[in-house]
């Protein structure tokens, strides 16, 4: 069993939890992104590749759903079976990519990579999504430390 507590204040995680679930729900309902390598002339390969990845992503999302449905998560605790850790790591990456694409377009790649974000010049509507982006990154950091 993996268990750790996030460093972020639990009042923030409580506030963000419903929005994380909303992003998760939106993300799981969207179509798969295009994959950069696929020989488009080979329709069988493209179909098999995308279908297989789609199934793998769905399995990963189930593990993340178990974490998000846990009442402890909203209070800043991460708790899961060890077998779920890699699936959750991947699924969180998918959500962070989705949040970046859908809600953080006003931030540059450099701002995201360095974390040097000035909210005074940005719309306040992106703040909760940026916090989600950071909190999910902290979950990933914690999981990586646990499993490596």
């Amino acid at each position: 069993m993996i268990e750790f507590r996030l460093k972020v204040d639990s009042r923030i995680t409580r506030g963000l939890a419903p929005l994380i679930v909303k992003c998760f729900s939106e993300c799981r309902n969207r179509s798969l992104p295009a994959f950069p390598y696929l020989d488009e002339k080979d329709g069988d390969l493209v179909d098999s590749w995308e279908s297989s990845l789609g199934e793998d992503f769905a399995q990963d999302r189930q593990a993340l759903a178990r974490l998000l449905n846990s009442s402890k998560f909203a209070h800043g605790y991460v708790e899961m079976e060890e077998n779920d850790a890699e699936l959750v790591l991947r699924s969180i990456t998918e959500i962070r990519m989705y949040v970046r694409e859908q809600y953080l377009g006003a931030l540059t790649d450099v701002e995201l990579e360095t974390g040097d974000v000035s909210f005074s010049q940005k719309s306040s509507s992106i703040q909760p999504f940026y916090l989600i982006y950071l909190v999910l990154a902290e979950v990933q950091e914690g999981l990586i430390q646990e499993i490596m």
Partner: protein
Amino acid sequence: MSLETITKTETKEDTSLDIPWRVVVLNDPVNLMSYVVMVFKKVLGFNETKATKHMREVHELGRSIVWSGNREKAENFAYQLQHWHLQTILEKDD
């Protein structure tokens, strides 16, 4: 469905199977450096030093060739790296 199933669908004659292919990982602003290092270690079997070197290449140069060899194995690695949400392409190693 597993990747084995995918490769089984590729039964057509394909001379490109004999040409070496490169697995190339592209930079993205989302993935954590520690995440990319971990994925390289898990998927490609790199040690910490090699995984970190390739992660830095991706970060600083925008891309890194992480493996080259036969197409089937290259596709297998590309599939796994895409499953971990790393932007991965295959190129012919001319």
